[in-house]
């Protein structure tokens, strides 16, 4: 499945990575070769094989639905780029 310039720009947009045309072109060749390598998987017959998501094949444990954490907002916000009155600041979203 050959990769095109538009595919790289589409993936970059979906991933919210700000790439310009030149940068996308820079990645196109590498990603094309990686996908070519990955395409070896298609030569293997996996009909009827169940996908394996967890190497120990265990199901996800659920914890009890209880509040266990204390409020640490101030501590967590200390490493934020911009906060004010306990809120994270971002550019205006609603005019």
């Amino acid at each position, binding site marked *: 499945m050959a990769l095109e310039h538009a595919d790289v720009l589409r993936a970059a947009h979906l991933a919210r990575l700000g790439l310009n045309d030149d940068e996308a072109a820079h990645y196109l060749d590498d990603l094309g070769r*990686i996908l070519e390598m990955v395409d070896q998987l298609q030569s293997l017959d996996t009909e009827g094989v169940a996908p394996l998501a967890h190497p120990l094949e265990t199901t996800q444990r659920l914890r009890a639905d209880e509040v266990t954490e204390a409020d640490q907002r101030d501590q967590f916000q200390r490493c934020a780029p*911009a906060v004010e009155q306990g809120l994270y600041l971002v550019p205006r979203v609603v005019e």
Partner: protein
Amino acid sequence: MHDKTLTELAAGLAAGEFSSRELTESLLARIERHDGDLNSFITVTPEQALAAADAADGARGEAGPLAGVPLALKDIFCTTGVKTSAGSRMLDNFVAPYDATVVEKLKAAGTVSLGKTNMDEFAMGSSNENSFYGPVKNPWDGSAVPGGSSGGSAAAVAAGLVPAAMGTDTGGSIRQPAAFCGITGLKPTYGRVSRYGIIAYASSLDQAGPMARTAEDCARLLGAIAGHDPRDSTSVARGVPDYTEELAAPLSGLKIGLPTEYFGEGLDPDVERAVREAIRVYESLGATVREVSLPHTHYAIPAYYVIAPAEASSNLARYDGVRFGHRCDAPADLTDLYKRSRAEGFGEEVQRRILMGTHTLSEGFFDAYYKKAQQVRRLIRQDFLDAFDEFDVLMGPASPTPAFDLGAKKDPVSMYLQDIYTIAINLAGIPGISVPAGFVGGRPVGLQILGTHFAEARLLNVAHQFQQATDWHLRRPALAEETL
């Protein structure tokens, strides 16, 4: 003191031959002298280290077996009050508000962290050339890479700056740098060690483990960090054995399988010679050796380079410039904030893998790539389970070549192929250890030993017995021979 193993240092501390402060000061002086060139540390924390050393000295007599022992942490473990960068510009300003469980456990054991070691950005790399903080040099040869992504940890141990360090292994990132630097590195079974507070790369593959000079040291450290953690739902609720108990068990009757696929095309003949010589040592210790096939090995790298980038693209979505990490200047709107913060904060390899992962997970491609790779993952795991019906352990090289030169591999695919013998182990979730087993052109070679899920005690025993019969693990680079 820097030439002693962690086990010897612990014994010296317990016997009162020296204090933790003396030991810590001595190693901090070595870091000061040698690390400017080696670049194995991103952050050195002398004040915290000396305070922890004094606390350990004060508790002497009541403290545990690792009390006062210095070590270092890969800069992927969150540490309260100390920068945790994951080797990335994105987190250059990040000071975690909490400790990873591994860090908590090591502190509880009384160990003294000297700082945070250099690494490939977000653990993506096989050479430690992808760090925002520059490449690490291999202590055996300054023109060679130390391996990645735990290359800083491996180099610091090999150079005698610390007796041990913590690493993480997603596709070989403990075992390959351990092999390149001539130290011992253990990747435990997936779920054996909590991942809470470890910056995530690929969540179904990442696992933390110890890197030290000997298997005995790794056994002591694994005992300190292993165990169930309610804060990590993928950690396994299973008791932690005393990993030092079985170290001395004899190896007579041990059944070793040699995967034919690990001795094929692409393997440096001198590396093969060293590994086969190491296996002959096992035969002299009473083990039997036979070939075995892991028929899906060839598909491990393609499967990994679908699964790991897919998980990474999801995990790295949290770096959005809003709550922590790098934020671009004067964003025009929210989308601009996200896009520019991420483009500026992430390095090239990280961007490449995010793009790859996002593409393979996107509409129209999911079944052909992600689902297919997860099916292949099951076949790879089954190969190992079948082999372990017949054999106690499998052995082969940790890497097809010794450490390569800095800057030698410019093409990502050729770099990815470096992990051909380590990656399948992460897909299957089994444990693996690399032990020093010789040299090629003055650069170390690692023997990789694999076991079935939760067979760490057996692996450590098998590695320890080799180290009782050989002296490869005692060899030191010239840098580590210097008294300061």
